């Protein structure tokens, strides 16, 4: 539902009801869920938690709980929502040519006739309305677009009710970081929202200064950090990605002649203690200036639990993502997420990143990325090492993102540099399905709008391809292997 005053129109309404919370399996959603759970716990609100992994799941869960549901809370933010009346309307009239009078909503046909009827002049008006509606929906649905992180919205709710805690703040930081890591928001948005969160962090830290237990092992402190996502060199625009990493290698090797294999360097960097990373900061700044690279630092947060455990928000996101995707879809998803936070598994992150590196390397070296005209296309074959990792949406998204960056850096073809990328990877070998996703072209000024959802739908429709558009992120679909050819052809035609 769409609300303007989240406290009055949402929280105050649900606080006295029994709530069903349908939560999509992405990290921002789960973080928002955690915050909401904490608030509910405070106010003794009874709720049922139902993780959903896609539209079908959502539908099923809704039907199951339909009797008791009054309010549906789905953690997925969109902006620019069209007005209700432009999209829905009371069906005062029906299809002239239809029979049985059973058009429209399901309560049709089965209910008592109305006591009175108005005779409406509707032919042209209806056509005009329908055309307008189609336009609006296309504009709205055309782009996959994310607004403010759900967990931030929930945190603000908690703050407005002066019930915000440090835990909730940390959750919302993770939620925001998730959006950033998975490239769902623009850099500007990230920076703006980080600034907001920074204010909250300061407020909370300030609050705790006088606490006597500031040295206790249970104390949680959130610090503002700079992170160098060097391994993913986001801002590398002048130099090739390889060169940038090579530069880091040099630094780490203290300029030694022999250069370690890329992956080992990265491993080393990843497993480095944060404190060491900090010391590198100045060194890196220097060399980045040397190479004329723009400020590659990104602002983020880290949390300290006790004395030894210190985690960067993005690490948490990666760990959680890896865990989320390594389980079967059940209620296990939520429990595992909670587990993830209790014992961060660094090995999972490493495994994933390693996999990404290897795959990128092999794709580029073997010229696996092909230009199809309006877009680039890369199909991961079954035999590719670590290919199983990429049958999952989040992992594939990351791979896709960095592959495109690497490709853009490594290609000399100017035209290819501004093309979007579609990737396909085997999903379920037995069922013969592939997972397909599309990302917009690599661009600094990218507004992160992704039109592939709509394009995939249309291509599937026009070729009667067997697809499943179940993901909340509409630019990710499942497709039957055999339909791949015609589906791609349709896409090419569509996007030309």
């Amino acid at each position, binding site marked *: 539902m769409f609300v303007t005053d989240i406290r009055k129109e949402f929280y105050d309404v649900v606080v006295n009801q029994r709530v069903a919370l349908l939560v999509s399996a992405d990290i921002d959603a789960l973080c928002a869920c955690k915050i909401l759970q904490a608030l509910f716990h405070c106010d003794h609100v009874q709720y049922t938690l139902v993780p959903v992994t896609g539209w079908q799941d959502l539908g099923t869960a809704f039907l199951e709980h339909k009797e008791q549901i009054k309010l549906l809370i789905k953690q997925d933010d969109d902006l620019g929502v069209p007005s209700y009346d432009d999209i829905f309307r009371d069906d005062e009239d029906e299809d002239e040519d239809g029979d049985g*009078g059973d058009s429209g909503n399901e309560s049709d046909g089965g*209910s008592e006739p109305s006591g*009175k009827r108005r005779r409406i002049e509707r032919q*042209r008006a209806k056509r005009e309305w329908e055309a307008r509606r189609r336009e609006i929906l296309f504009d709205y649905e055309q782009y996959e677009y994310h607004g403010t992180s759900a967990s931030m919205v929930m945190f603000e709710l908690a703050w407005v009710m002066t019930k915000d805690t440090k835990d909730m703040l940390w959750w919302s930081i993770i939620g925001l970081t998730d959006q950033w890591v998975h490239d769902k928001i623009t850099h500007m948005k990230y920076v703006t929202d980080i600034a907001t969160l920074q204010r909250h962090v300061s407020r909370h830290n300030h609050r705790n200064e006088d606490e006597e237990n500031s040295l206790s092992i249970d104390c949680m402190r959130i610090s503002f950090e700079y992170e160098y996502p060097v391994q993913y060199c986001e801002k590398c625009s002048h130099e090739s990605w390889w060169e940038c990493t090579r530069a880091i290698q040099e630094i780490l090797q203290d300029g030694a002649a022999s250069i370690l294999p890329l992956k080992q360097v990265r491993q080393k960097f990843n497993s480095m203690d944060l404190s060491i990373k900090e010391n590198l900061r100045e060194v890196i700044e220097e060399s980045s200036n040397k190479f004329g690279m723009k400020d590659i630092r990104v602002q983020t947060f880290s949390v300290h639990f006790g004395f030894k455990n210190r985690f960067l928000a993005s690490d948490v996101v990666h760990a959680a993502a890896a865990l989320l995707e390594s389980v079967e879809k059940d209620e296990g998803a939520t429990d595992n997420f909670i587990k993830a936070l209790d014992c961060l598994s660094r090995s999972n992150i490493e495994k994933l990143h390693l996999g990404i590196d290897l795959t990128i390397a092999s794709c580029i070296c073997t010229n696996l990325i092909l230009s199809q005209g309006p877009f680039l296309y890369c199909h991961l074959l079954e035999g590719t090492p670590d290919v199983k990792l990429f049958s999952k949406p989040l992992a594939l998204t990351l791979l896709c993102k960095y592959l495109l960056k690497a490709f853009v850096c490594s290609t000399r073809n100017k035209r290819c540099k501004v093309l979007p990328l579609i990737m396909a990877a085997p999903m379920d070998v037995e069922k013969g399905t592939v997972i397909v996703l599309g990302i917009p072209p690599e661009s600094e000024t990218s507004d992160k709008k992704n039109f592939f959802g709509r394009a995939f739908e249309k291509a599937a429709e026009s070729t009667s391809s067997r697809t499943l558009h179940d993901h909340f992120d509409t630019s990710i679909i499942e497709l039957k292997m055999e339909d791949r050819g015609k589906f791609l052809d349709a896409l090419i035609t569509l996007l030309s």
Partner: protein
Amino acid sequence: MPTENLTDKRLSKFKNKGKDPLKMRERRVAECVELRKAQRVESILKRRNIEFQPVEEPLSPEYNTDNQQVISATIQEIIENVNSDCPERQTQGCQTARKLLSRERNPPLKEVVEAGLLSRFVEFLSRNDNPTLQFEAAWSLTNVASGTSWHTQQVVEHGAVPAFISLLASPMLNISEQAVWALGNIAGDGPSYRDALIDCNVIPALLARLTPDAPVGYLRNLTWTLSNLCRNKNPFPRFSAVQQMLPSIIQLLHHSDKSVLSDACWAISYLTDGPNERIDVIIKTGILPRLVELLTFEELAVVTPALRSIGNIVSGSDVQTQAAIDAGVLTALPKLMRHPKPNVQKEAAWAVSNIAAGPRPQIQQLITCGLLSPLVDLLKNADFKTQREAVWAVTNYTSGGTVEQVVQLVKCGGLEAILNLLTVKDAKTVLVILDAINNIFLAAEKLGEVEKLCLLVEELGGLDRIELLQNHENNTVYRAAQALIEKYFSEDAADECLKTEATETDFVFGPTEVQRRFDF
């Protein structure tokens, strides 16, 4: 289905309030206004638009504006035109009004009324020399009358009714049809205006228009209006009026158009929603076989009112129920109990519950026509409202059935299914289930198989649930649960069992039965 939970037929006698129709007619029923308002706000108007569109030009934007000033100005213009002596200007004014009133959203009904335009519109209705004028005026008035009770009242008080009744006989089909529509709106306002129209002899005038060559669209409007004349209670339409309309309604029930069928069915459902005398009138028309046939139609719009009618009929006397059974309703019901729409399932279960409240031969027919198995399925899988009806069916059945009949139900899984429902939140339903369990135990007593039944109940997990119910917050529930436990599951009860003579027949509730039940 009437709003009261009609369950036991013996409870479903209606009390005819016996109000004086004259009084009803004069009175402005305040509740009616509220009801209609609420209905208007909530209802989704699903009427099919008629095909005949005499005016070709589309509605231009100025008629669609929400701008109050523009609307005011337009209405001013209408007033001037309509009050002039020039026929062309009068027609123009009416047409402008019609366009305003027939636009998609927020037609300015109130503004038109307050502009004092209604008297002129009604005047124009009698202008037989100018059909276009008549038509535009009729359409405008129809739309005003489609509003709240207040709007309809305004139309009536300006003398529209006699004029519209006259227009029914207009040689121009579109005008006649518009009159049908307008009168439908007025009749639909409530029993008061419905009866006023009947007193003005609207029924013969309408029925005269029911000719074989009437176009389908016209027929649809006619059927709808007739159904409104059958509609509403407090009071019901008087018998003489119903008798007048029935033959035509029966005729329409044999038409091929689904909308016509649907509205005709609804008319029957209204007419059967009353005391047994009302039901008798319908049954005497011989319409039952056709109603049962309509139950098998694909279209939900037809099935729903047909099922409602049948449900009403079997909530009547045993004789009336038998008439329905004889017409084949039990063959149609199983499919309806498996219908994809929960509402249809629910109403089918309701009908079964009323048949199960009948005499033993009727209960036997439930068995022979294979209704037990779908009933148990509903108990297991349907949505709660349907389950509730099914539970009533079981209780009625076990209350009125013979021992053998009760045993049949248990063998079909009925006991297991209701035991599983003991955990529902609704205390009333739990009580009904406990009742049914008691009834089954009574049957067991007659067979001397109480102990076996206890074992069965225990194995099915029922004993645990009944024991838990002893802690229920509802007094009646925990007392009933306690009573059940004390009577059959306590130490003393065991002794009582031993005293009863065991019969020679197979232990009906015995272990072999238990095993069979659990052999999945």
